[in-house]
């Protein structure tokens, strides 16, 4: 199919057409022409203010499939991702059963083939993600696992993590960790601080995260292996990572949209949609996360998309499950909360950085390149209503946001939202 994008602004620093407003003709999944194009195409798109960038990547999403299909399936997750402007999603192994062997990874890869979005499975580091015995990571890599993580089950044992980091050096793959010392944070329900004290909720101290950041950096240094810390939420954690990078340690990190947009002061109404892990921290922590995005200490955005059906959220705060959905609102939320973050930087955080860190295909917007784009309208105001994800646990529902992903071009197909 030929697709002609009329008068789109290209945001791609690696492209010779960066920042130009121009026509792009896509033929058979590749870019045929860029410039002023007179000839008509079978499908033409002309939307005022349309921007295009290399396809966005989410490095940490839960699609709950297999096993928890009442929350999300690969199909509904992929629809949500495409609606949110993602061409690529790395999905977590915390399914039922856990993605901890070849057959689990192959299931994801096979099912992913027919979906509009490219799905990259993350394999579990340990069997059943229990943090005890190493899983068959080489075999999973052969089948298509792009990185390894026990996901929501942070590896507690330093010994196991050390071995995992060493083991993965043979295939040059990265460990992903959510730093959280459960011996300290286990009984907590939100960030420990002034707000948790006033709300009478047990706290998770920031130090539970910071100690693990410190430990994981030391282990990465000792093993000379690659670690990616995700869900970074405290000022001290950002400082530790910044310093480690200066030292040349192979540590990278990502933050969630909710740690950019919310802090613990927003929890006064016990809103279970804001019950997330790592928890929303203080205002100062939120500012530090934003600063990290600006100065490059933070490498990418990870949605931590975690769908929960209504019955697991419409409960007393203590009994509600953790998590919020994020794929469809990620760009809009960040662009609304941090309008000062340039589009160029945002595209780097959403696309080029994660592609570099996890060795995913990088296609510059240039003639003959494979067409894998995100289409978005940075100035579009919209109210979050209909979501493609199966679960609706988002604090943004009903809110007005500025900036909207309107679709993707991927796998020689166009996926276009209502806009």
């Amino acid at each position, binding site marked *: 199919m030929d697709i002609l994008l009329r008068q789109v602004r290209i945001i791609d620093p690696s492209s010779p057409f960066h920042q130009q407003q121009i026509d792009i003709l896509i033929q058979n999944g590749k870019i045929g022409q860029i410039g002023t194009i007179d000839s008509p195409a079978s499908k033409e798109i002309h939307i005022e203010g349309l921007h295009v960038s290399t396809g966005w990547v989410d490095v940490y999403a839960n699609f709950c499939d297999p096993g928890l299909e009442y929350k999300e399936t690969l199909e509904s997750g992929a629809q949500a991702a495409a609606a949110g402007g993602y061409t690529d999603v790395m999905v977590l192994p915390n399914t039922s059963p856990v993605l901890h062997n070849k057959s689990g990874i192959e299931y994801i890869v096979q099912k992913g083939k027919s979906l509009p979005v490219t799905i990259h499975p993350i394999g579990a580091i340990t069997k059943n993600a229990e943090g005890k015995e190493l899983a068959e990571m080489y075999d999973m890599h052969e089948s298509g696992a792009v990185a390894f993580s026990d996901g929501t089950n942070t590896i507690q044992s330093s010994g196991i993590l050390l071995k995992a980091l060493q083991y993965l050096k043979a295939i040059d793959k990265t460990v992903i960790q959510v730093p959280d010392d459960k011996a300290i944070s286990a009984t907590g329900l939100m960030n420990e*601080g002034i707000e948790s004290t006033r*709300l*009478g909720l047990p706290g998770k101290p920031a130090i539970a995260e910071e100690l693990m950041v410190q430990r994981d950096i030391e282990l990465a240094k000792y093993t000379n292996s690659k670690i990616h810390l995700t869900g970074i939420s405290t000022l001290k954690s950002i400082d530790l990572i910044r310093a480690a990078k200066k030292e040349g340690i192979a540590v990278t990190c990502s933050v969630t949209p909710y740690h950019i947009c919310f802090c613990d002061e927003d929890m006064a*109404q016990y809103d279970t949609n804001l019950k997330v892990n790592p928890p929303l921290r203080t205002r100062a922590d939120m500012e530090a996360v934003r600063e990290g995005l600006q100065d490059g200490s933070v490498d990418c955005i990870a949605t931590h998309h975690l769908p929960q059906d209504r019955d697991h959220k419409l409960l*007393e705060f*203590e009994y509600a499950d953790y998590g919020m959905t994020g794929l469809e609102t990620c760009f809009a939320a960040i662009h609304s909360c941090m309008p000062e973050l340039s589009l160029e930087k945002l595209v780097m955080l959403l696309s080029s950085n994660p592609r570099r860190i996890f060795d995913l295909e990088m296609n510059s917007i240039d003639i003959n390149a494979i067409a894998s784009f995100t289409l978005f309208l940075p100035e579009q105001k919209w109210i979050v209503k209909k979501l493609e994800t199966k679960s609706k646990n988002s604090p943004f529902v009903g809110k007005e946001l500025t900036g909207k992903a309107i679709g993707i071009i991927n796998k020689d197909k166009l996926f276009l939202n209502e806009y």
Partner: protein
Amino acid sequence: MALSTRHLLGIKDLTPADISLLLDTAKQFKEVLQRPIKKVPSLRDVTIVNLFYENSTRTRISFELAEKRLSADTINFSASGSSVSKGETLLDTVNNILSMKVDMVVMRHSASGAPHFLAKHIPASIINAGDGINEHPTQALLDAFSIIEKFGTLNGTRVAIIGDIMHSRVAQSNIYLLTKMGAEVVVCGPPTLIPKYIDQAFNVRVEYNLTKALEWCDVANVLRIQLERQNQVLFSSLREYSLVYGINKRILDSLEKKITIMHPGPINRGVELDSDVADSDQSIILQQVENGVAVRMAVLYLLAGDRNSS
């Protein structure tokens, strides 16, 4: 005069004017309770459900008595032996009860914020009878009422709250109320049982030494040590706790002034309070219980009044 709120979720949401109104109204009800006929018709045709998801003796009886003295119709519900044990959610349970035309809900629940959750989703007035480690507003009101009876005012009165501050909704509500009304507050207990940020969250001072706290205060509000917390490695043993933080007659007699002892009950005799302290003339523990009924009548009356006017 009316309250600024249609629920009593916590002292946190009350203004000083609300607190004064509640305490003044409670005083009138206390007079009513001295009469030969203690029953008034104020809440006739108001139906109240007492929803107890956690065990309670004092609070539950006190609420029930208050409701009966006001001529309300009451239903009692406890989680054990109900459909809650069959897995019914809080919202389903309450909606089922409300569909039988109930006007007010008095609820005790082990999860902090549970009454706030209900208030968002159902139309009835909610009265928090204790939620998790968050608040127990009627206890704070009856404690304040009892202090005023003894000292005439809260303003400038020095109150030491002693024990497991971290897991105590009584401490939390007392701190909100006392600091709003101008009392001075010290919290005292082992550091593992005191929230790290308490002195930043509230206008209170932290004191780890029991004798110093007692020497400073006019009133010691002594909290129950919750035996069920022991498995969390928060203190070594009840024996050691009572040696260091238990109040006995010897300590009381060594103080320069006669301080007043309060306790929300139930007492672990020989742990946080020795019997000769609990039963001494310095203790107003039974007056607290008596005042509880008047205070709860005031709460129900004022919130139902709001219901009638709306």
